[in-house]
């Protein structure tokens, strides 16, 4: 029997036209799909599809350009902020954002990230922090928590051996060039809304020439963490949020 409530005139949500119809390759439970959807919605709501140039990372989101329907440049691993620097300076009326994971942004691309932020480039950086290298199969990331097991620290991250988890956003707050630094998550509806507001603000900041905005999204990688999606979200709340507390770190 058909349900009369499910009718086109009653729909309160529809897919953004900036999202393509391609089926995402992400694992069920992964945060990337939600963040992609938010980015697409914000671009649509700001009416910036024709003015947006995205910079794709190397990592699980390497194929972001197959899902968010704007022009994209695929960066070498970690170099996205350098690309975005030139793209924005040469095309100041365009919305330029990078989308990077923690391996990309906080390990191999540390220098490019810090210097782009320190110059105050008018770009937005979406930073997915799930504490692990997802694409290459679950190796230790700079953000891997102490004691957390990965394929390259199978007994758990050992501080004496591997050093401390790197909290990049805490570092970036201190740079004069950043105007907005925030840490969010997308593991429940209220946080999805907060993340969307954060991304909108970051994109608006870059168009207003306020400096660099960073939206860190503390994310779950249930495949890499070897958990079910629900377990991963719970583990994230109990462990990741302790090391990476949610909220605005800077808003000027």
């Amino acid at each position: 029997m058909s349900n009369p409530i499910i009718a086109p005139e009653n729909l309160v949500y529809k897919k953004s036209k900036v999202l393509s119809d391609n089926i995402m390759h992400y694992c069920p439970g992964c945060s990337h799909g939600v963040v992609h959807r938010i980015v697409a919605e914000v671009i649509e709501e700001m009416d910036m599809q024709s003015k947006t140039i995205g910079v794709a990372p190397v990592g699980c989101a390497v194929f972001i350009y197959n899902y968010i329907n704007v022009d994209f440049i695929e960066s070498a691993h970690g170099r996205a902020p350098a690309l975005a620097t030139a793209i924005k300076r040469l095309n100041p009326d365009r919305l330029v954002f990078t989308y990077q994971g923690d391996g990309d942004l906080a390990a191999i691309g540390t220098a490019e990230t810090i210097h782009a932020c320190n110059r105050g480039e008018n770009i937005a950086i979406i930073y997915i922090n799930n504490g692990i290298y997802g694409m290459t199969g679950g190796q230790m990331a700079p953000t891997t928590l102490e004691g957390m097991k990965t394929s390259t620290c199978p007994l758990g991250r050992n501080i004496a051996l591997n050093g401390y988890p790197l909290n990049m956003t805490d570092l970036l707050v201190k740079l004069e060039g950043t105007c907005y630094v925030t840490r969010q998550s997308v593991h429940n509806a209220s946080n999805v809304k907060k993340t969307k507001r954060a991304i909108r603000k970051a994109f608006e900041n870059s168009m207003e020439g306020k400096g660099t905005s960073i939206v860190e999204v503390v994310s779950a990688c249930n495949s890499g963490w070897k958990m079910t999606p629900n377990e991963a979200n719970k583990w994230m709340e109990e462990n990741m949020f302790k090391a990476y507390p949610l909220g605005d770190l800077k808003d000027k």
Partner: protein
Amino acid sequence: MLKNMEEVKLLKGNEAIAHAAIRCGCDGYFGYPITPQSEVMETLMALRPWESTGMVVLQAESEVASINMVFGGAGTGKKVMTSSSSPGVSLMQEGISFSCGANLPMLLVNVMRGGPGLGTIQASQSDYFQTVKGGGHGDYKLITLAPASVQEMADFVDLGFTLSFKYRIPSMILSDGVIGQMMEKVVLPPYKPRRTEEEVIAECPWAATGKTEGRYRNLISSLELDPTIMEKQNEERQARIKLVEATEVRYEEFMCEEADYLLVAFGSSARICQNAVETLRAEGLKVGLLRPITLWPFPTKVLAKYAEKVKCMMTVELNAGQMVEDVRLSVNGKVPVFHFGRMGGVVPTPEEVIDALKNHL
């Protein structure tokens, strides 16, 4: 106000690069200081083109960042460039490989110094292999222009961009510390305006400029996981490479008429060889100089022709013998090909070249 006319100036080779970049309508320069080429960025900063043509000039945090800024800018269809010297260019190899993989036009400048390693700040030509054989990973080529004068430093900026946009292969001006630092008279071309947004989109419909209504999104990428598609993309690149090899070879013949012996040299070595050839001709020895201007594409055919006429050839290079391998491939064993080189930043005198040649006669 910029005077839209030719100007004659006395400039260093590095300074000429900067002037020529502004005058050819370059959109952006991204670089990192390194001797012996820092005058390129210093001159740009002193000339402040962002106030006149709107050209962006930015000092990056590293050569790695510079080349990736160039990659980003080129991905939006802009005329962008960087310059560096040997150790810095080694750092750029990742970005150069990615640029070739993504078929991006751009201008690179290497004012070579001695190596390997930190080496020396004095002139060298020991990055020949790195440049023409591929210093980064994958099957690619760089259109390589070797200036032998300050005038050519200026001229090859516009030429480099033109060839690079025509074939969507990065161009490299492969210079050295002598050409970069020496001062000569140079005729600078009139100012060419930077392209408008509409002109960029018309010339570069592939560029990431913003997905307008009615077209599919543009993607600048060197990634393709399907081997059959990746092979097709490589085949398409190789077809362009073959086309460049067939049509863009440039070289200069100096006193080659009825030559019995041929010197082959590029860049500053060629200047030394000119002097040697004049002296030897005055002595009655029929010696000529063939100067490859494009190191890739290499003047293979003309060298093969000379192999039918001369008794031997000798390359003169500021290295341990790099271009000599390409000359030997070109003549395919028809005549002996010798090499004379100095390394570590030492530049030979014409007399040393003359003695080296006479040792082989």
